[in-house]
């Protein structure tokens, strides 16, 4: 039986006249990897940012494990939500005044209240898992974008989240650094992590994704099995988008 972790119903968000999210319904099941694709301005990043309330929706409903987190007004249990939902950003957003280990450790220490020894051990373990065992004491400005992004992934994982959100995490990277980050995400998916990825990496979506969601104009236009959506799209807008993306 599939266990639904995040359930989003009729989620809406607008900036003035611009309806960025015009009623989104979407579920994320345990262990599932969902890739959200779509043209820029389609609302996919906003959707992801609404899932952990970095962006406050205007209306709709978000449930975490069946508990309402958002129901149209003020978000509830924001702390619980953010502890369970890890997020990785396009621009990494590492804390520049801390070493790689410091970045991965700080929230374990201050939010999870883990013992210093346990924090350190976990940080070293995670940094090794993302292939940065030799960069533990390095500062962000001395690391490549790909390395920084892998630290950011380790930092989010250190909170032992149930869900990981990836917001175009390879878009700011030089082409040769993309694979290292995608490999980390691939391993994470194989380990059973529940993931929602906004991405332009169609190959990744096809290979790793359990489901692909195509968004345009603030709505879900088409969703389903990656081979289906990417290989044999049914909707005109999906076809047009994929035609543009895959032709170059």
């Amino acid at each position: 039986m599939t266990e639904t972790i995040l359930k989003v119903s009729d989620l809406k968000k607008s900036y003035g006249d611009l309806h960025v999210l015009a009623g989104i319904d979407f579920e994320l099941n345990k262990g599932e990897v969902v890739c959200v694709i779509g043209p820029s301005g389609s609302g996919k990043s906003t959707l992801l940012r609404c899932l952990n309330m970095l962006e406050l929706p205007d209306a709709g409903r978000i449930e975490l494990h069946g508990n309402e987190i958002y129901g149209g007004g003020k978000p509830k249990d924001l702390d619980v939500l953010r502890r369970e939902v890890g997020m990785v950003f396009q621009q990494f957003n590492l804390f520049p005044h801390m070493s790689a280990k410091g970045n991965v450790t700080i929230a374990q220490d201050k939010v999870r209240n883990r013992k210093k020894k346990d924090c350190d051990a976990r940080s070293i373990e995670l940094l090794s898992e993302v292939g940065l065992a030799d960069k533990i004491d390095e500062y962000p400005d001395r690391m490549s974008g790909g390395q920084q992004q892998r630290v950011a992934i380790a930092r989010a994982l250190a909170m032992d989240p149930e869900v990981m959100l990836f917001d175009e995490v390879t878009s700011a990277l030089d082409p040769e650094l993309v694979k290292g980050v995608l490999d980390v995400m691939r391993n994470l998916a194989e380990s059973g992590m529940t993931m929602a990825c906004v991405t332009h990496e169609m190959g990744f979506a096809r290979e790793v994704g359990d489901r692909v969601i195509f968004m345009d104009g603030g709505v879900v236009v088409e969703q389903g099995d990656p081979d289906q959506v990417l290989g044999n799209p049914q909707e005109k807008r999906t076809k047009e988008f994929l035609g543009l993306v895959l032709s170059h």
Partner: protein
Amino acid sequence: MEQFFNTYFDFGIMGDYFGDVLNGFWWTIRLSVFGGVLALIWGLILSVLRQLPGRLLSPIRILAIAYIDALRGIPMLLTLLLIAGGLGTLASQDAIPKEIGIPNWLGYPDPFWYGVMALTLTYGAYMAEVYRAGIEAVPRGQMEAARSLGMSHGQAMRYVIVPQAVRKVIPPLLNDFIALMKDTSLVSVLGFVEVVQVGQDVYSETFNPSALTLGAIMFLVFTIPLARLTDWLIKRQESKFERGIP
């Protein structure tokens, strides 16, 4: 020319009163250090209060903004006279305890502490604006990353935003400190014998301002290196970000 030189640089007078001027300057230093450190702390508190999030906390935000605007808009001399006059009067009427109204902490006289209070209140407001600029210069993504890890606003400020902001604003804070150091001379209006008052006293005795010149030199010995240090820090920060030739 010789008259000019003898008026401002009478080495005889400078030598005779060197010890007195130095004593006065030592008070100037102590005023600067107490006032400076307290203003640094008070300014940081104000700037954090000013940045509190949410509608619920808006009264605190508004109070902080009103305070900062008011204290920056009043001459420090006036603030100093209001404190000295007010606290002394209130204490003599037993409206507030004598220990607070006429402070004698650490054995230092009450004008010293009135001066420290005025410096802290005024320069705290100036420094709050400097800190604010630093806090606002930290990219938005830093707060988002911290909050997405489950940190509260307070934790994010304390561990992520403020440490970065403070680093950015050390040079402008040093500039404010130089200004604060010079404004310690205002405490002379309370009859407090810091360096300017000593110079004035010597002038009344000798009708020669050379002791004031000596005081000015003592100021420069501190303020010029501080100004150079500030410039050097700014240059170093810039070179960190801009590697090319603009």
